[in-house]
């Protein structure tokens, strides 16, 4: 497992070169935006159960066959497995966001996930849709772009210092896209 710092070290070691100059610029931005990053991780972890249940609910609303007899979220046992998987995926994304590197997500979550889902008969298209909804709500919470209109009764705004966190929203979005890409 690597983080943003050890990633630059490993790639520098492959060239037998010290880490300096332009490599350090990227790390300095990680350090400079460190508090933003921690707030972003906090935005995900504090709302994890809401993000996950909302995504699975949305997935089912769009395809109600999933909870009818014979569907992949029927009975409760399989619905529970679905919620659990959503939380696991979100958890590894929160690790990747904290580390600033996707290796923990790749190594510990995505490697072999598609094959597992195919073997278990999990519809990867539906799973991908749930992850896409998680991406929408998580990025809205990180960027504080969620509105009462889209959030409804569950509307929540993280009370953090206002600032530009477009880079972190894009980074978090890329991790969600990575999951969708890995299972579809």
């Amino acid at each position, binding site marked *: *497992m*690597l*983080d943003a*710092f*050890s990633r*630059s*070290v*490993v790639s*520098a*070691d492959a060239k*037998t*070169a*010290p*880490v*300096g*100059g332009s490599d*350090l610029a990227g*790390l*300095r931005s*990680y*350090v400079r935006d*460190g*508090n933003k990053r*921690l707030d972003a*991780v*906090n935005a*995900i*972890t504090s709302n*994890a159960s809401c993000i996950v249940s909302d995504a699975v609910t949305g997935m089912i609303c769009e395809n109600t066959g999933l909870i009818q007899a014979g569907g992949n979220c029927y009975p409760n046992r399989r619905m529970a497995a679905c919620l659990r998987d959503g939380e696991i995926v979100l*958890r590894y994304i*929160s*690790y990747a966001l*904290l*580390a*600033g590197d996707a290796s*923990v997500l790749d190594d*510990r979550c995505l490697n072999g996930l598609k094959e597992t889902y195919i073997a278990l008969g999990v519809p990867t298209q539906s799973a991908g849709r749930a992850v896409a909804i998680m991406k929408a709500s998580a990025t809205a919470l990180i960027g504080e772009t969620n509105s009462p209109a889209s959030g409804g009764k569950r509307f929540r705004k993280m009370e953090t210092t206002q600032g530009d966190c477009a880079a972190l929203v894009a980074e978090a979005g890329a991790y969600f896209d990575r999951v969708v890409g890995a299972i579809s």
Partner: protein
Amino acid sequence: MKSVVTTVVTAADAAGRFPSQNDLEAVQGNIQRAAARLEAAEKLAAGLDAVTREAGDACFSKYSYLKQAGEAGDSQVKVDKCYRDLGHYMRLINYCLVVGGTGPLDEWGIAGAREVYRSLSLPTGPYVEALTYTRDRACAPRDMSPQALNEFKSYLDYLINALS
């Protein structure tokens, strides 16, 4: 590669929980010290060749018998390899400064070093001398800021202790 963030993530993953406030605080503490570390890494990377040369020169001037026939540095090839090794150690210290932990030195420098030096009948004393020279030669604010120098010297001391 072991660092504060990977340690925190590994522990959270083993417990199957999201990163907690404690985890975030630990990462925050690491980030606060990062500016000095990165400054030291940058200065060391910029002067890596000069630092390596000075350290090697110091070691060969103190242990001049090393260049006599039958000793560890009796040909230019062997002398060059000594400088190369010192360069590797400096580079690994640069990596440690970037990561904020001793992971790179442990995994790529120290693990197995004792066995290698013994089987090649190389003395580790001259390496210690070279690294000690570097540690005592570096000074603030000429080379880097005091806090950065402190970080740099702590990794040099770590390596000196491992080789002694």
